């Protein structure tokens, strides 16, 4: 096991959430990243730097201390983070979450090499040299070892108060074979499914310019990351708003046309086009065996050359989270009147619901009232990928701290 950054022996001395030294450190780190020539070349690193600045963290801090219980919290001790193997910046986000909650952190970084990680850790190391942050230094340990070397997972698990596993499911299952001390807790970020709801009425009312703005946001939620993230939408449910079939069709054509025109900048590599066409052919060959319709699962397909495929579902199948997934610009669509028609999305796998033209609170109230066990986030299009302190249904500061009542 290699200590890549920070110390080998962590000081297990919890702080209160949002302690001054942590906020100072994150702000200094943010500045250092934003003035680092290499760091500036990575947009994902810059997004983190922007997130970590005092202006952003300070607002969260204020909000946090509005509640009485916030004032009674303290970190749990040591958090052992298993960072995801393919989203480089998440290892630093999870570290920052741990610090903000008041904990010392040992972060296992992926063995696969990422220049972003090298860069971010290099800058952390520089900032930690400052006298003012010696306390943070003692709370910081980034390590690297092969996932097969379970003796290290065992050792670190036995020492931690909270274990945080960034999935997917296979990683979680394999790490969970290693026991935690009885008092320790665990947070797991498993494989998830996400979708969107668009109001037909809202689309019809939008100006071309507004629609284009929406399409750009949609692009960033989907094409930008090859539709390959837990929170990227695969299915768009169009709320009919009592409009005529013709209006609905017009709205949908308008919507998809605007997506198509923005998606022109997407680089569709040959192999991705091929995989996408295979997915399309595979899904049109599916039947909805369970339904009374006893027909095809896919009613029709709108094709916008190979950049955008839109498959209209004749029903939402029970296994929608498995079956209705697209890659590289393939989406499913479904028309509905009332939320109850979407009940198959009450599935613990469902994470983010991106909305357009809907009342966020009304949808949340519905989910709560019906006791759904899916949907952890309701956000506008364009924000599906914004990771933050409330994620996957967890309030991370709460989960990484304890309350002295």
């Amino acid at each position, binding site marked *: 096991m290699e200590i890549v950054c920070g110390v080998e022996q962590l000081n297990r001395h919890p702080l209160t959430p949002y302690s001054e030294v942590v906020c100072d450190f994150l702000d200094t780190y943010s500045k250092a990243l934003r003035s680092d020539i290499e760091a500036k070349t990575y947009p994902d690193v810059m997004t983190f730097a922007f997130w970590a600045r005092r202006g952003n963290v300070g607002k969260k801090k204020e909000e946090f201390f509005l509640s009485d219980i916030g004032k009674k919290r303290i970190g749990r001790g040591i958090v052992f983070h298993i960072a*995801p193997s393919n*989203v480089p910046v998440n290892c630093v986000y999870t570290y920052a979450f741990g610090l903000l909650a008041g904990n010392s952190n040992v972060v296992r970084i992926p063995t696969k090499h990422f220049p972003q990680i090298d860069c971010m850790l290099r800058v952390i190391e520089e900032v930690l040299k400052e006298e003012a942050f010696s306390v943070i230094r003692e709370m910081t340990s980034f390590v690297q070892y092969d996932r097969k070397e379970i003796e290290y997972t065992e050792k670190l698990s036995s020492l931690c108060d909270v274990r945080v596993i960034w999935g997917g499911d296979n*990683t979680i299952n394999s790490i969970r074979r290693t026991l935690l001390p009885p008092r320790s807790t665990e947070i797991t970020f498993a494989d998830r499914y996400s979708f969107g709801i668009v109001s037909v009425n809202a689309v019809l009312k939008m100006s071309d310019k507004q629609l284009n703005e929406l399409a750009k946001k949609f692009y960033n939620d989907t094409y930008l*990351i090859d539709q390959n993230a837990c929170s990227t939408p695969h299915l768009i449910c169009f709320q009919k708003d009592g409009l005529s079939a013709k209006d609905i069709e017009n709205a949908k054509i308008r919507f998809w046309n605007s997506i198509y025109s923005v998606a022109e900048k997407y680089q*569709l590599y040959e192999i991705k086009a091929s995989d996408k066409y295979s997915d399309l*052919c595979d899904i049109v060959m*599916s*039947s909805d065996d369970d339904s009374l319709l006893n027909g095809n699962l896919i009613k029709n*397909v709108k094709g916008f050359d190979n950049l955008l495929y839109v498959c209209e579902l004749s029903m939402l199948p029970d296994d929608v989270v498995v079956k209705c*997934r697209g890659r590289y610009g393939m989406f499913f669509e479904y028309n509905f009147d009332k939320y109850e028609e979407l009940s198959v999305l009450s599935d613990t796998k469902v994470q983010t619901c991106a909305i357009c033209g809907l009342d966020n609170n009304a949808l949340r109230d519905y989910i709560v009232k019906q006791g759904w066990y899916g949907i952890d986030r309701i956000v506008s299009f364009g924000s599906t990928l914004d990771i933050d302190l409330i994620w996957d249904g967890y309030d991370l500061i709460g989960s990484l701290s304890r309350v002295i009542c």
Partner: protein
Amino acid sequence: MSIEEMLNHSPYEDECDIKQNIFLERLNMLTYRHYNRCKEYHQFIDILHGGKIQYESIEDVPFLPVKIFKKRELKSVSDEEVFKIMTSSGTTGQQVSKIFLDKTTANNQQKVLTRIVSEYTGRSRMPMIILDCPSVLKNRNMFSARGAGILGFSLFGSKKIFAFTDDMELNLTEIKDFLKKYEGQTIFLFGFTYMIWQYFYKKLVEINEYLPLEKGVLIHGGGWKKLASEAVSKEKFKESLNSVCGITSVHDYYGMVEQTGCIYMECECGHLHASIFSDVLIRNMQDFSVCQNGEMGAIQVLSALPASYPGHSILTEDIGRVLGEDDCPCGRKGKYIEIIGRMKNAEIRGCSDTFER
């Protein structure tokens, strides 16, 4: 036109206009057949092609992606009629294509293969060296692409030996005895490109041995992916083999388990030829438009043979181009093509932990 009637034509005699008519009629017949017998294909045509099954031009005939044969078991015959199942040779853990053959389709594949290959080797059988090991033919129920290739080409052999032991060691003494016994005769050799390079050529160089195969005819296939990574070009392959055994007649072929029989043989000019039993279109992957001759794109292969599974029109993951049609200096009619290689792997963005297909 039935395959029997098509077999009365020489595989490279028909010029474009004659071939197109015969071929299109056959493709329409196959589309109709699969539409009515294969439920999945029926849905594919209904949903993506509005139920249309008769087409005016070969370019309009719908194509399935080659990966679909890895995802689904597609067949247009009843389970009882399945005579054998061919699989692509994937490494362990990889998904393999499963191709269902009835007796008729299997027979037609063999007949067409024979017709095509005899244009290069002559009709009589020859002593044959199989550049592979005997174990590849075990387990006859599940034919791998490698085993199927060997069995298919074995029909050209009178006496046959395997060049390698099951440990892929060269049977040098046996080969030498064999060559002595059939001295002066044309020797037919068949194997897979990479294995010939790795276990035949390299071994002969290593032990500094020359085999007298000046009168040999070598047919090899399976692709250049591994050799390209060792920077071995077609030319280098031929020259190198010539240096260790004097062979001059070396023919590559392009083919796949999804369309067995309809192989594209390399002529004396180094071009891969479509026969009257198959055709090739090159498509631009941005919008599936058909590329001009000379332009590179994804290779779509069309075959007159697949009657037991809907594989008469397939979009491959290979990149290539059509070099010309009916005008190859070797005199063979039909399209002749060049294979550039597989589609390049692209880095996938996002967090791929979300879902593994």
